[in-house]
């Protein structure tokens, strides 16, 4: 996002305490989802701990691996800054505020189970809103990712496996993942690249 190239991160000396506090602040203030955007602002923009291209590169790793993008990003950035200890400090920092908050919330929720119905009604409304939220996140990510008809078929197969056939998510992930990786095998990707270059030449752009 920044106009000027960020300083080379490898020469930067960041202490474990700074890493922990930096991620703790992001973990405590990233309200409303989209933690990755908060991470980018905090790490690339404000603190200049890593370059933006490094951030994008690390994010692409996280999106392929199991685990949440936010926690995986904390681990990878922490590792770049201070090795394994840095990764641990970053992970604990980003998880601590939300984890504490949710523990307190669950405790309060457990205590309210046998009280008035008002709380249940509020939570029912909140849950309905959360449904709208998770669908909007899925659509926004899908717009960026789904480009070819094969992508839509893979999405449909995954949804049918989980929601219609009620297969285990792990099984669907392994099966659909294997089919998808084979579909986009190296020779196929090379052929697609040549094809798109040819079309670009023909349209003269």
């Amino acid at each position, binding site marked *: 996002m920044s106009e000027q190239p960020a300083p080379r991160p490898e020469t930067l000396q960041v202490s474990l305490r700074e890493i922990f506090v930096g991620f703790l602040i992001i973990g405590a203030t990233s309200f409303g989802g989209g933690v990755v955007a908060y991470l980018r602002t905090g790490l690339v923009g404000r603190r200049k701990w890593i370059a933006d291209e490094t951030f994008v590169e690390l994010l692409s790793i996280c999106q392929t691996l199991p685990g949440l993008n936010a926690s995986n990003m904390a681990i990878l950035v922490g*590792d770049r800054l201070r090795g394994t200890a840095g990764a641990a400090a970053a992970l604990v920092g980003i998880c601590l505020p939300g984890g504490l908050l949710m523990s307190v919330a669950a405790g309060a929720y457990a205590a309210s189970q046998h009280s008035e119905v008002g709380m249940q009604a509020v939570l029912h409304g909140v849950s309905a809103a959360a449904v709208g939220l998770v669908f909007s996140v899925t659509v926004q990510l899908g717009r960026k990712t789904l480009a070819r008809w094969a992508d839509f078929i893979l999405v449909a197969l995954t949804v049918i496996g989980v929601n219609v056939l009620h297969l285990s998510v792990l099984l669907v992930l392994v099966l659909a993942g294997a089919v998808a990786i084979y579909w986009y095998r190296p020779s196929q990707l090379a052929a697609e690249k040549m094809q798109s270059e040819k079309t670009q030449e023909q349209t003269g752009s």
Partner: protein
Amino acid sequence: MSQLPALIGVFAYLSLLTVGGGMAAFPEMKTLVVDTFHWMTVPQLVHIYSVGQVSPGPNMMMIAGVGQWVAGPVGAVAVVAAFFLPTGLFTLWVGRLWNRLDHWPWRASIQRGLAPVSIGLLLAGSISIARSTVTGWEGAMIALGVFGILLATRMNPIPLIAASGAIGYFLFR
């Protein structure tokens, strides 16, 4: 306290499914937490999940709430450790390996192929949450309204969630 080993096993397993995002693990979480171990009911799980959408940090910190619910503070810590440690170590390892994999042609294939599958898992998770949550037209209207507004404006969802809670107070009592 005897629930701790089961809690740790369940959430370590669930963490492996979160390719693309936490929502991917929701269908399996519902099956394990509600049907297999009877730790809570579907509405209770949905309520904790939904409150988790308002909490800051990684969007699955609600798992700490489930741990707290089942086994108190120790349960919360155990669940968070089980959920983040295995995948975290794997990420640390792959992150260091990644640059060396640069010339491995299948790296691009894995990235390209898993992208649509992860969207499919997110969609499947969303459908599963919707089925567990939306039981009448009032809830459907709230969900659709929030969905539409978020796509149209890209605003922060917190005010919408708060407003929906207020609407729920009058609608669902």
